[in-house]
């Protein structure tokens, strides 16, 4: 008899509301951060993570993935990001709500918690699901898929920290994921310097997504309507017993120096001369 999976898989997808990548970033007047009074959307790597979770469900029999849950830790407006995840196809969402930062224009990155804080919060949520168990209405997490980094602070550590805290395996910078539900493991292609690497990891595990993993879908109107009715659970960090007080202090944020345009030279000789002037010599 074929061994049947002991239970079906639950996927957790952490998502973050970030300044949209198309926005031209400006440092705020007090130099504590960037102007946040601009268009935000879901961090693009997280969008890839949501898409991948949905594709895994579509690829395997729909009942194999029993739940896809999106979670965000952020200010009230982060609800938009959760709605997008739900419209794409996540089943439910969790909002660990942080207070709105005092003034949006000169708020530093203080409104966005640090990777360690986020990892601890995610761990607390995952532990809680484990404790409650399937019977108690919990969704014990088998797979966490999240972005390799968030494009606002570019820290790129959350996935790794979470794996460390949980003691789970991890496959970072994924460009391809193959799930073997029966063996409870995943084969992941990773993007590494100068090529790719394939790893096999036992579930439960953490995957962080890279750009080439997939191309996220549009949210269709019926799904956007359905998303409005999907459940969103709201919590405070204290409900999970975590403290998100920053342990890092931003001293100053400044614009990079303006690039000066190139000059034109009249002849090759002049070019060679200029290169020598700037210390370039023939080998």
């Amino acid at each position, binding site marked *: 008899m074929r061994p049947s999976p002991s239970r079906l898989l639950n996927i957790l997808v952490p998502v973050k509301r970030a300044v949209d990548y198309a926005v031209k970033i400006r440092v705020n007047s007090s130099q504590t951060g960037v102007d946040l009074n601009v268009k935000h*959307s*879901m961090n693009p790597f997280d969008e890839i993570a949501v898409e991948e979770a949905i594709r895994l469900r579509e690829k395997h029999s729909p009942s194999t993935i029993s739940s896809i849950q999106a979670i965000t830790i952020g200010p009230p407006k982060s609800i938009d990001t959760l709605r997008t995840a739900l419209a794409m196809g996540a089943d439910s969402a969790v909002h660990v709500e942080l207070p709105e930062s005092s003034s949006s224009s000169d708020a530093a990155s203080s409104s966005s918690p640090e990777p360690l804080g986020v990892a601890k919060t995610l761990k607390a949520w995952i532990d809680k699901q484990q404790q409650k168990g399937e019977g108690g209405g919990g969704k014990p997490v088998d797979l966490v898929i999240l972005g390799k980094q968030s494009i606002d602070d570019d820290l790129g550590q959350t996935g790794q920290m979470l794996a460390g805290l949980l003691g789970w395996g991890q496959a970072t910078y994924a460009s391809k994921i193959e799930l073997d539900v029966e063996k409870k493991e995943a084969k992941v292609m990773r993007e590494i310097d100068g090529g790719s690497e394939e790893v096999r990891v036992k579930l439960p595990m953490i995957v962080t997504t890279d750009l080439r993993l997939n*191309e996220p879908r549009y949210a269709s*109107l019926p799904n956007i309507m359905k998303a409005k009715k999907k459940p969103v659970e709201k919590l405070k960090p204290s409900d999970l017993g975590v403290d998100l007080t920053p342990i890092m202090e931003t001293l100053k944020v400044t614009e990079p120096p303006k690039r000066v345009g190139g000059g034109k030279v009249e002849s090759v000789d002049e070019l060679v001369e200029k290169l020598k002037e700037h210390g370039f010599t023939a080998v």
Partner: protein
Amino acid sequence: MLSRRLFARCLSSRRVFSTLNPVTDSDVTHFTRILSPSSVLSTLSPVSTPHDELDIYNTDWMGKYRGKSTTVLKPKTTEEVSEIVKWCHDKRIPIVPQGGNTGLVGGSVPLKDEVILSLANMSNVRSFDPVSGILVADAGCILQSLTDYVAPYDHIMPLDLGAKGSCQIGGNVSTNAGGLRLLRYGSLHGSVLGLEVVLPNGTILDQLTSLRKDNTGYDLKQLFIGAEGTLGVITGVSILTAPAPQASNNVILALPTFDNVVPLFKTVKRQLSEILSAFEFIDRTAYNLAVKHGQGRALSDEDVEGAECFILVETSGGRREHDEEKLADLLEHLLEADKPLINTGVLAQNPAQFSSLWALREGVTEAVSKEGKAYKYDISVPAATFKQVVDTTRDHLRSKGLLNEDAVKHVLGYGHVGDGNLHLNIVAKAYTPEIQAALEPFVYEIVASHRGSVSAEHGIGAMKTHALPYSKTEVSIALMRKIKELFDPRGIMNPGKVLE
């Protein structure tokens, strides 16, 4: 019948050129004296540029029209333009003003060996007033670069079109380009406030005012808007830019039948009112071609299933929450109606998706040109007849045995519903006289039967001179001739274009 018409056209073009002279070596020598060396390209001596370097200037965007010009001049100032034109006037040398060369009616390339006067080197912004939004720029400024220029001041250009990366503001004004924002900001006849023009005898006409109101006699600048370079060379443009919307959204709606387009337009207009900024139509064939040629990411199979056509709706407004709420209400209303006008749709979730949805619409022009040789009819007809016009044309081609892989591959329609402007495109394997004969005057007769326009926004150029009578009365055409005669008695400015 056909040969008679062609013969008549040859005759009239011969008449236009009979009093004009080709460029000679001594003319080129003169041009090298009044312009800097990099501004003169000529296959004639003493410059002797290789022939192939002139190809891009001699060939139009569609690859349909090819001129044999020997000489391209790229002046840097209005005075240089004036000098050139004065010389050409004296020597009776014909001139084709050329902007970004993206025109779609063969107006921007020579019919024979006219001098090409390219505005590409006149690309400076002269002034911008962030309070009034009035921008004054050289005619050779590329539309996209002007858009980028005013963006930091929270303004946008009142027009936008697929060719924005290459077309020039002078070319836009000369063709009275419509484009994607016309629904919101109106035509260039309203937003252009002033022009600087070099008249066909070299005189500089300075009407570069920046006044919103100026009722002092005849509004001469209006004549140059849409004149396609037949009355003079535009060298400077003063244009009113609009405050940039603070929030934009877009959605593509999939419709089960074309019959729903007009009712949908009514509903959308009513519910979105002032934030509606575009309502664009793409039929299924056009959509499929855009996807095939990689213009923007496709919708999922499920979303396009059973769709006969698509509508792209864009909103722009001052407050995101307000706009999103309005749009959400509309979409809910559309989905939950007893008899829904739409199957489904997709709503952009971020600027990347916003661009991708637009690319599906804007990319049709490019997709069509990749697919084959296009016969393009840019016509004004009542929006309710769009599909009928496309279908009738397709049936007609089929009845002539021309609808197959070796002749006409696709007949498709897309365009600006809000403006009653249909782009009817016939994609063929090659341009052939049989297809041409099957299409014309057939298409023009359909247009005339709806009292439409044979050229809604692309102009007349070389392509449609013979079709002018389908949209303009004899009295109008006679007046146009008198105006041409008044400005350009020697007929050196873009001969053979607009008027035969």
